[in-house]
């Protein structure tokens, strides 16, 4: 391998909570690893187990749900 493993991570974020927290992290210019791709939802209640399995089906290495 040699090269460092760069995981593909999918994030599902609640519009009012984690998505907003992520925005405020940006405003404060905090830095974090660039691996996560975010799908915004209006609420974590929208989170269907199907989406998580779907994510692994397309080869996602990790799924982060942020309420």
């Amino acid at each position, binding site marked *: 391998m040699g090269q460092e*493993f760069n*995981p593909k991570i999918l994030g599902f974020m609640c519009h009012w909570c984690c998505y907003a927290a*992520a925005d405020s992290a940006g405003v404060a210019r905090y830095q974090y*690893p660039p691996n996560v791709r975010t799908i915004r939802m209006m609420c974590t209640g929208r989170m269907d*187990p199907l989406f*998580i399995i779907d994510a692994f089906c397309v080869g996602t290495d*990790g799924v*982060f749900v942020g*309420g």
Partner: protein
Amino acid sequence: MEEFVRKILVKVGINSDRFALEWASAAEGPRFVKLITDFTTKIKSLGPLGEPEGDSKDELLIKLFAARNALEKAKLRTGLGKLTKGFRKEGDYSDQIIKDKVNEKLAKSISAEIARNETLLRIQKEGPIHFDDLTQKIGMPRTDIEKYVAAFRKKGLVAEADGQLSVTSRKSEG
């Protein structure tokens, strides 16, 4: 939902640490950063999907597809819905209670539904396949698999010849 997903992941053969459910309020930027950083580190340490889990990529995928197909159908979804409804009614959301209830009410049908879908998927993908091979690959009791196969045959999806199973009308799934 969380415990339910974990159960499925374990069943499929994925380290359930690959899935995290966390909370951060709008003002908690630093907390979000910590959560994401920690999660990324954890996934890095786990390695690429499937690799540490030991299964071959194809094996993992077939189980994942089986889980996905199961989750598209009403049986498991109804189970989850009813369970959530129960929690809402009781008002008790402690971790232990949720764990116990998922185990008590859903564990069986999770296994069964994934196996049922896996049976069909394997026959579609790997058929003609011998019943014994099928049973061994799926890793469930032979009687269960027989039951699923019988149902598929009844629906005209699967045919048997000399102990070899294959699909009748090739509907590609996954």
